């Protein structure tokens, strides 16, 4: 089981180990923010990638670590997006007097909106998880799929959420700093769960539910907790999404979106956090890269550029088929990149696993 242990920082005092990664990340993120100030397209793409990474890593907690097959992640994302979006719309002109400037006040409200979106999504995660996580396999998949669709249909028919047109004019408060900070938090949470006692229980459930139960693991409670954590981060991802796209409508949270996330974690290797990240980044950038290449190949020829998106899904499909044939366990399997990378570098030294 050494594969799930995070790399150790040696020589760091114990009290610092908890907050150290966050303290280290802040200046790097601030630098990234400053460096991309003049590149809105880069920021947009990075934000989309960031949101997909959060979704993939959070879904991986349920699907990968706990071994439960949930395919309704877009539903939690929708809950977060609509709650955070609605909150920001309603409080657009609210200024917190104790903050230094309007921008700072907006950012604080934004963080609050994200937490609110995440929290409501987590509540939904609990409500859906409690009854349905007593189910197994296919049945759970069907329940989560149904949940995702129910959320979408409810939103589509609610006046407050703008029906089919969705919510528009959501203040665009998102920044690369905020997105990447949440990406970082999600990954940190996923890694710390994996290497905690809690994570061991989740892994035990994945490997053999009956054996885990026999060992005294309260399987339903652990599964629901994993589900709630996963839903929280999906809600935050939805909130971020709402604040850089500026409009959300039910069409963005369909079954297809859920499947995209499932594809990411399956391709990356169920149970591998770094695998989910790599796959999410790759699969998000792939269509954009194809668009660039095709636009150039055709010299701006529209009919060619148009074909890019049509071949995106076949490429997804072919990639997955190839992956399942060649590496049924996904890119990294259940291992992390630092478990796998040294092996690639030293070209399969004998006896090393």
């Amino acid at each position, binding site marked *: 089981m050494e594969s799930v242990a995070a790399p150790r920082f040696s020589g760091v005092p114990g009290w610092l180990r908890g907050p150290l990664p966050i303290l280290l990340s802040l200046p790097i993120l601030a630098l990234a923010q400053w460096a991309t100030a003049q590149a809105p397209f880069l920021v947009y793409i990075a934000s989309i990638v960031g949101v997909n990474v959060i979704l993939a890593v959070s879904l991986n907690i349920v699907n990968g670590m706990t071994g439960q097959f949930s395919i309704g992640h877009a539903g939690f994302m929708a809950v977060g997006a609509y709650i955070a979006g609605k909150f920001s719309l309603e409080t657009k002109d609210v200024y917190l007097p104790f903050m230094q400037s309007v921008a700072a006040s907006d950012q604080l409200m934004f963080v609050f909106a994200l937490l609110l979106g995440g929290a409501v999504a987590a509540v939904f995660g609990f409500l859906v998880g409690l009854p349905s996580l007593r189910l197994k396999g296919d049945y759970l998949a069907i329940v989560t799929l149904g949940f995702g669709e129910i959320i979408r249909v409810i939103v589509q028919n609610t006046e407050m959420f703008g029906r089919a047109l969705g919510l528009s004019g959501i203040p665009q408060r998102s920044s690369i700093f905020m997105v990447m900070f949440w990406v970082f938090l999600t990954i940190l949470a996923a890694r710390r769960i994996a290497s905690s006692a809690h994570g061991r229980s989740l892994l035990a459930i994945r490997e053999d539910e009956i054996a885990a139960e026999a060992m005294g693991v309260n399987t339903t409670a652990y599964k629901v907790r994993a589900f709630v954590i996963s839903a929280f981060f999906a809600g935050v991802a939805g909130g971020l999404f709402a604040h850089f796209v500026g409009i959300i409508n039910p*069409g963005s949270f369909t079954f297809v979106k859920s499947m995209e996330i499932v594809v990411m974690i399956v391709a990356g290797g169920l149970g591998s956090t770094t695998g989910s990240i790599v796959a999410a980044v790759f699969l998000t950038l792939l269509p954009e890269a194809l668009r660039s290449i095709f636009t150039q190949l055709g010299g*701006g020829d*529209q009919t*060619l550029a148009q074909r*890019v998106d049509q071949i995106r899904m076949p490429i997804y499909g072919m990639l997955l088929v190839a992956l399942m044939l060649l590496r049924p366990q996904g890119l990294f399997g259940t291992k992390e990149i630092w478990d796998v990378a040294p092996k690639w570098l030293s070209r399969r030294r004998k006896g090393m696993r």
Partner: protein
Amino acid sequence: MRVLRFAVVALMALGCATACEERPKTQESETTQGTGAATGAIAASGETGPADANTILIGEVGSLTGPEATFGVSTRNGIDLAIQQENAAGGVKGKKLKVRVYDDQSKPEEAANAVTRLISQDRVAVILGEVASSNSLAMAPKAQAAQTPMITPSSTNEKVTQVGDYIFRVCFIDAFQGYAMAKFAHDTLKVKTAAILKDQKSDYSLGLTKVFNTKFTEFGGKIVTIEAYSKGDTDFRAQLTAIKSAKPEALYIPGYYTDIGVIARQARELGIKTILLGGDGWESPTLTELGGSALDGSYYTNHYSPEDPSPHVQQFIAEYRKVYGAVPDSLAALGYDAARVAVDAMRRAKDLTGPSIRDAIAQTKAFPGVAGTISIDENRNAVKPAVVLKVEDGKTKFVTTVSP
């Protein structure tokens, strides 16, 4: 892993190869000549960028794939035709025009992505798009923030141009159609009483209902009853029976064509003989297929009719048919108008910066568009007439235009 990596590369190469192979077969919609040779060299960098000094780049975002693909393709055809003609007429300020179009798969997040790319990577002068209001609403804040003028050909929801002073449209807003039909019903059809059957799930239908209701009453008519249905319902007999007992002279159904056919059939089965009235949601080749003879004698408002006898409309239709081999629908006509309004504004603008072009678009007055004469009002909406069409023997016939 080596095998996998090889497979990935092979797959991508395969994807490229198939697309390249098909290229000669596809219709060349490049609107400037002489760039073909340069593309091979740039392809390696995989980066799109601003055009050279002698070209003005116009950005377009459209639903070329996805559920609204036919809208996007028609609009693109209209825009391409307009740009070809303007280039043949000498371009703008001695420069050629070129359109760069990105697909948004009918999704708002992809539309926002595409418009950001057009603004920051390609540095386009003007943005044209989108058809669906939700996609335009995703694009508008980005264009507004970057001070790049945006003209939507056919987003009728009033919120779109409220985003900011760089956002324009060349079609009328939802509310105007309600007004146009109320006026037509009262003045031309001499109808005194009307009933409304609205789609309670659609903003579009509710908007039209509200304006038709107030305007028809203002003109001296009487709304006898308002009934509601939900898009996708299959049984309308309960509502129709209520309408029948109210005995209206006309029935206004501002919905989409998919429901209209069924409603019309069931109305006739119940013996309702009143005139049916509708909006541009009725516009579809399959409308009469779904409704059959039940729709004969109905009227609906629309943006444009290919039967409009004006010479410039007929000339547009002839040229469109020559290039694309089909009669242009209203989306193609609106795309054509949007592109021409943009080009006209660029000609009048003192330079090609965003603010100058914006001012020039805002000053557009009495521009002879094929889908009606366009004047931009202070809310950046087009003030233009609507056409009224009559359904007869499975065909639509141009009846009249209703001016604001």
